[in-house]
């Protein structure tokens, strides 16, 4: 239960930072969504991918379910491919991704998730990791739709984000399917 609460709070804190009006910790947020320029949007995208790769690598060494390990391997492969695309685009455009509050929040949330996951083994790890993947991909999908894609000024950056969207949506559906299969053991 504690893990689940922390997981939800992590996802919501990301959403609260990225999306206006999101309920976080039971409060209504009224501040406007952060205004990000293209180098900052690129940094958020790269950070979001890197975080999921790092957690997937932890899952590859800890998960007991072969399906969860296969999911984690797909996350490493796909998010690495996205970041290669992003790096190639940044080089072509001569843009240096710029750190920002959203990226920092993502990293803080990831560190918290990692601390919690590192205390788990076996089936409880599998369930907590898949819970985290469901919440994280949902948050990233919402961020893409509501902040990152509409906020990107450069057409190539926007096209890249639009290309990434179906991948995130497919990962989310896969994560939900797999999480449901794992059941609710303790």
């Amino acid at each position, binding site marked *: 239960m504690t893990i689940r609460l922390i997981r939800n709070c992590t996802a919501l804190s990301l959403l609260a930072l990225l999306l206006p009006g999101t309920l976080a910790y039971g409060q209504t947020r009224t501040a406007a969504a952060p205004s990000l320029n293209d180098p900052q949007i690129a940094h958020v995208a790269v950070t979001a991918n890197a975080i999921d790769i790092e957690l997937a690598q932890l899952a590859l060494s800890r998960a007991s379910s072969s399906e969860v390990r296969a999911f984690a391997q797909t996350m490493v*492969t796909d998010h690495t491919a996205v970041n290669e695309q992003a790096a190639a685009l940044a080089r072509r455009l001569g843009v240096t991704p710029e750190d920002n509050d959203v990226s920092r929040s993502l990293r803080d949330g990831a560190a918290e998730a990692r601390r919690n996951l590192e205390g788990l083994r076996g089936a409880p790890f599998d369930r907590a990791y898949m819970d985290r993947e469901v919440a994280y991909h949902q948050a990233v999908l919402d961020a893409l739709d509501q902040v990152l894609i509409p906020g990107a000024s450069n057409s190539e950056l926007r096209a890249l984000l639009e290309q990434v969207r179906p991948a995130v949506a497919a990962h989310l559906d896969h994560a939900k399917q797999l999480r449901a299969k794992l059941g609710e053991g303790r």
Partner: protein
Amino acid sequence: MSRIGKLWPALAVVAVVSAAWLWWSAGAAPERAPRRHVVEIRGFQFVPPALEVAVGDTIVWVNRDFVPHTATAANGGWDSSEIARDGTWSYVVRERGRHEYFCALHPTMAASFTAE
């Protein structure tokens, strides 16, 4: 009766059977040449998601996404293994019926083809 005369009933039977075969084969649907069908994998979807083919046709999957995918039979009968970005894989259809398949890396991606 001459020798030819004795063979006449047998020759008549051969003639009738041959005529019947010619008539049947002329009336039957002509065999069509095997075709090639292309399924594009893009945006984490198989396009088109359903296909009508014939036994002997070839289906070619072309991966337009930036990540690897597979085309894997739901019944385990065939599997492309990983199709890399811009890679292709082809399969010659061998059995009639509806064939469902999915991407083993992203199992929510599913499609089918029906072979006549």
